[in-house]
């Protein structure tokens, strides 16, 4: 077991794939020069029929200064196929607009991702104007991990990997929520989409110390993995896929095809992915530890649920802020004599989660809702991963919760699976 630690490594998965400023990935779009007086009408229509959701940093309209003090406006009509110069690939609604206003569409390139630096932004605007929002947050680890922190990360990831080796000879996903300030496991869970009555202690919600994960590594369960060797000739992806079919986040849509390994008496639930189960455990722990608090609740959870538009007018904002002042006073009175109350965490704010596989979209968004601060995963999820593989939620500016994503590179033999 000690052979492994040296080759472990932690990589930050940034808001977008890293590239030199002048080699940023681009996408093709259809654009057209337009009459200035049509701008509002066209932009409104286009935002309805061809919203550029994946390109929110890109400005819809480009203003060019021509010779003689004239300006020329161009608008992005819609996305274009990468290797297709045919104008007939435009959606029907856009085509109608083009015909109606007699536009002359052309294909041009825009930058695919937000600029992360001023240099990138300047390069981007040479192609087509974008907006730039400098990062305003800093999360431990983005600039690197010290020796002690790295060891702690590896240790919790090992714990998660051991959990992921299920009793059925398959690998599942596992999630471990950790309070890094005290290096304590808050909750841990495995996928329960096939069955969630397993008589294991893996979903324990009891907080345990850092020592416990290490002890788990020599758990008899790990013997199961040895048996995979015979199943798994080197490089056999078919066998690998078979081994991992139990990982809910990898195959979220295949739940109905999976046969349960357990008797009918056992409940299954296609959405009980490890991350959701772990969140549920941590919420249960929260309710248990702080049960005396009753209806004493936090407003920001509610704000998290919906959009800003309901608090957007200055008058409303002021009102809510006033409420908060009063609330603070109430909070002070309430907390007197209950010193533990002030320590009640707000959801999973400040906590980390360790996942063996990159979470699917559902799980990744659940972690955002629950305010997890750092997400560590070992293996990317090319089927459905939402933190870098298929989507990249950490780059979604509209999500008002800032979090950081890391991949922990493991030696291949950790799962005894070539990945």
């Amino acid at each position, binding site marked *: 077991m000690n052979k492994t630690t040296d080759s472990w490594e932690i990589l930050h998965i940034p808001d977008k794939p890293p590239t030199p400023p002048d080699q940023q990935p681009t996408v093709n779009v259809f654009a057209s020069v337009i009459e200035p007086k049509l701008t509002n009408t066209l932009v409104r229509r286009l935002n309805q029929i061809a*919203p550029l*959701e994946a390109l929110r940093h890109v400005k819809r309209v480009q203003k060019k200064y021509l010779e003689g003090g004239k300006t020329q406006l161009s608008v992005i009509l819609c996305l274009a196929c990468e290797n297709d110069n045919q104008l007939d690939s435009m959606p029907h609604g856009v085509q109608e607009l083009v015909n109606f206003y007699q536009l002359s569409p052309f294909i041009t390139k825009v930058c*695919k991702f937000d600029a992360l630096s001023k240099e990138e932004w300047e390069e981007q605007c040479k192609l087509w104007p974008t907006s730039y929002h400098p990062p305003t947050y800093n999360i431990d680890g983005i600039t690197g991990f010290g020796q002690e922190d790295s060891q702690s990360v590896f240790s919790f990831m090992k714990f998660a990997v051991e959990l992921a080796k299920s009793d059925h000879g398959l690998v599942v996903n596992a999630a471990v929520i950790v309070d890094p300030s005290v290096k304590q496991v808050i909750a841990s869970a495995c996928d329960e989409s096939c069955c969630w009555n397993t008589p294991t202690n893996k979903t324990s919600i009891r907080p345990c110390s850092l020592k416990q994960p290490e002890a788990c590594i020599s758990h008899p369960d790990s013997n199961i993995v040895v048996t995979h060797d015979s199943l798994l000739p080197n490089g056999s992806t078919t066998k690998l896929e078979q081994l991992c079919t139990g990982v809910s986040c990898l195959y*979220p*849509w295949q*739940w*109905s*095809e*999976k046969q*349960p390994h357990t008797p009918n008496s056992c*409940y299954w*639930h*296609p*959405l009980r992915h490890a991350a*959701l189960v772990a*969140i549920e455990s941590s*919420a249960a722990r*929260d309710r248990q530890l702080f049960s005396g608090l009753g*209806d*004493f*609740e*936090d*407003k*920001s*959870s*509610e*704000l*998290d*649920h*919906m*959009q*800003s538009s*309901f*608090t957007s007018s200055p008058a*409303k*904002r002021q*009102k*809510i802020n006033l*409420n*908060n002042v009063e609330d*603070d006073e*109430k909070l002070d009175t309430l907390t007197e004599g209950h010193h533990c109350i002030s320590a009640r965490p707000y959801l999973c704010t400040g906590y980390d989660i360790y996942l063996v596989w990159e979470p*699917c*979209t*559902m799980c990744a*968004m*659940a972690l955002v*809702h*629950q*305010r997890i601060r750092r997400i560590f995963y070992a293996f990317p999820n090319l*089927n*459905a991963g*939402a933190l870098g*593989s*298929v*989507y990249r939620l950490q780059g*979604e500016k*509209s*999500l*008002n919760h800032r979090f950081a994503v890391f991949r922990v590179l493991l030696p291949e033999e950790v799962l005894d699976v070539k990945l």
Partner: protein
Amino acid sequence: MASPGEECSPDTFAFMELAIQQAKLALDSLEVPVGCVIVEDGKVIASGRNQTTETRNATRHAEMEAIDVLLEGWQRNGLSKLEVAKKISKCYLYVTCEPCIMCAAALSILGIKEVFYGCANDKFGGCGSILSLNLGRSEPCESGAVPQGKGFKCNGGIMASEAVSLLRTFYEQGNPNAPKPHRPLAHQATR
């Protein structure tokens, strides 16, 4: 996608009215007022309302509550996975607010037939506002790969003003017990 009132039967409004009732129940318990019902063969077979505050679990959105009711009931009646999948593929969801990214992903995983929603969710919406998970396979994505997954039909803007006014009531009345939020509200309101 957001075609308010268009091709909506009186039933659509009746079911949305029931979803709004659920949202009102949420409001009564100081939760963000979002509610939903799930309909099969013209009958409501499950309902749910947002319960994130009470549970301390920010994933307990109305849709997830209703889905849990359904799955539990069907399994109690001994339905197999395939039978459940088949039934869900005939179900309609009526929800007062556009499903968030998490719920939209969940609905895609389950394979729901169609979603009717009230107001858009421009911070977290997963049916067109931020991501379009309802489009399933057809949606191009960042990595250039075409994501897998089932799509579902989505109709927005149904009785949106009722849904919005409940939310507005909630945010304006404030929560008398709320401690200071962890982020300045002004930041919330910048968009």
